[in-house]
Each structure stands twice: as C-alpha cells, then as structure tokens.
C-alpha cells in the first residue's frame, strides 16, 4: 500500500470524527511516513511500519473521547444550510448581475481570443491565395510574351508562399495556445462551481 492509499483509508475509517481532527491526524501520519522515507525506507515499508490501517483506526477511535465523535455527528448542519440559503436569496440582486457580468466578460475574452486566431488563419489563407494568383498571372503574362512581368509575378508568388509557410507555424502555435487557455478557463469555471457545491 502506498502513502496516498493509507491516508485515504485512514480518513475513511475516521469518518464521524470532527473534520479538522481527521485532517490533523492525516498530517501527523503523513509526516511519520515521510520521516521513514527520509531514512531510506521504501514507501510500502514506511507505510507497513504503521501497521494495518484497520488497527490504526481502531486505536485512534479507542483513544478518542466519545464526546468528540458524537459532537461531529450531532452538528446542526441543517441550520448552517438554512443560513446559506437566506444569504443567497437576500444577496440575489447583488450577486446575480455580478455573476452574469463576470460570465459575459469571460465569454467576450474567449470570443476575442478566437477571433484573433481566425484572423491569423485568414491572413495565412490570403497569402496562399496570393501564391495561386501569382502563379496564374505569371502564366498569363508569359503566354502574352511579357516574360519580365511574368518573372516578377512568379517571384511575388514565391515570396507569398514563403510567408504563408512561416505564418502557418505561427497560426498553429497560437491555436494551440488558445485551445489550452480555453480549456483552462472552462475547467477553472467548473472547479469554481464544484467547490461551491461541496462547501
């Protein structure tokens, strides 16, 4: 068993004790494992030294005054929730428009970002168009016997081709960055709400 598994099972076994007490115990045991790791033991060995999780949990529960576990179980959760609801309702005219505004700003930022990406790709596409145009006009001038202009057109087309290739890599990088930023923003918003749900 590794450290994470041990701590997860410990937390699970201590459910019913005050939350801060569980966390404090988890920190204590985590420190004990870290100290043994520092001594050169493997993670499994360091965890093994603490004994089976069930024994650890049983001993902690035996050492804990019964009042503590009862206190956590009988916490007036309902009343806290009720207060939260009252606050939410009373604050609705304030927080709701603010929330909408925040969303609008965020959405606008994402749209601006993607508009920039699209415009960059449009530049690249127009450069490609110039390559085609250059080639076609070079052929036309050549057929009409205007060799010098045809060569100039061909050169301009080639320049555009070079620029298009150069721009392509730039566009790719910017698109990647925009994708990453959008994903981050989306997950940030998601976490914000998940956090609120659990609080």
């Amino acid at each position, binding site marked *: 068993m590794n450290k994470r598994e041990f701590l997860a099972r410990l937390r699970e076994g201590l459910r019913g004790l005050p939350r801060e007490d569980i966390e404090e*115990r988890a*920190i*204590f*045991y985590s*420190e*004990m494992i*870290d*100290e*043994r790791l*520092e001594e050169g033991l493997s993670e499994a060995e360091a965890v093994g030294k*603490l*004994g089976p999780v069930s024994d*650890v949990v049983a*001993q*902690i529960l035996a*050492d*804990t005054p019964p009042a503590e576990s009862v206190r956590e179980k009988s916490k007036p959760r309902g009343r806290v929730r009720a207060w939260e609801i009252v606050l939410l309702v009373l604050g609705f005219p304030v927080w709701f428009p603010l929330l909408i505004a925040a969303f609008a700003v965020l959405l606008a930022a994402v749209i601006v970002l993607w508009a920039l990406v699209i415009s960059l790709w449009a530049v690249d596409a127009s450069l490609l168009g110039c390559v085609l145009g250059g080639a076609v006009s070079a052929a036309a001038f050549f057929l009409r016997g205007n060799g010098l202009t045809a060569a100039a057109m061909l050169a301009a087309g080639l320049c555009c081709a070079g620029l298009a290739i150069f721009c392509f890599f730039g566009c790719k990088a910017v698109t990647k960055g925009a994708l990453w930023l959008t994903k981050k923003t989306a997950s940030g918003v998601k976490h914000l709400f998940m956090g609120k749900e659990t609080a």
Partner: protein
Amino acid sequence: MDSQLKRGLLDVCVLAAIKSEDSYGYRIMNDLKPYLELSESTLYTILKRLETAGMLTVRTAEHGGRLRKYYHITGEGLRRIREFREDWKEILSIYRFVVKEDEHE
C-alpha cells in the same frame, strides 16, 4: 500499571523529550524507544493533550521540501516535570514502605 499513573508518566516522558530542544513526532518516538514503546496514535493523543493543557506549543517549519511540526515546551510543561520529580520522591518513599512491610511478613 494503573492507567492514570501511566498517563502521567507518558506525559512527562514526552515533555522530557522536548525539554532541551524543540523536537518533532518521529524523533520523540525514537528518543523514547529505549524506555517505552509508543504507537503513533498514542503519541498523537499525548501531544494533543499536552498542547491543550498549555504544556507545549506547536510550530510548523519547512524541512526538505515538506512541512514538519515541531513541539516546544512551555513554562507550564517545565513546571509539570518539576512537579513529577517531587511526586516521585513521595511515590518512592511509599514504595519503600510497601516493600519493607511486605518483607516483614
């Protein structure tokens, strides 16, 4: 051993382990190993009890890229050790009396 007496002994042992300098959980356990075998759970309970009683304070310090809790003895903790030494004299005299009476039989 009487549980009340044992509890008192354990408290003083842990206080003695942090008397000369601040120490941390794992070191306290190792320092006490030659005298008594303490489980992590017991040590945690003792440290918590002593902290609540104001006999030690806890501070967290960075060590090797992680956090470690250090325990520091307070004036109250030092007083408890002195008290223990006084109590022990009394216990020893009672012990001598008990042994003497027992041998007379």
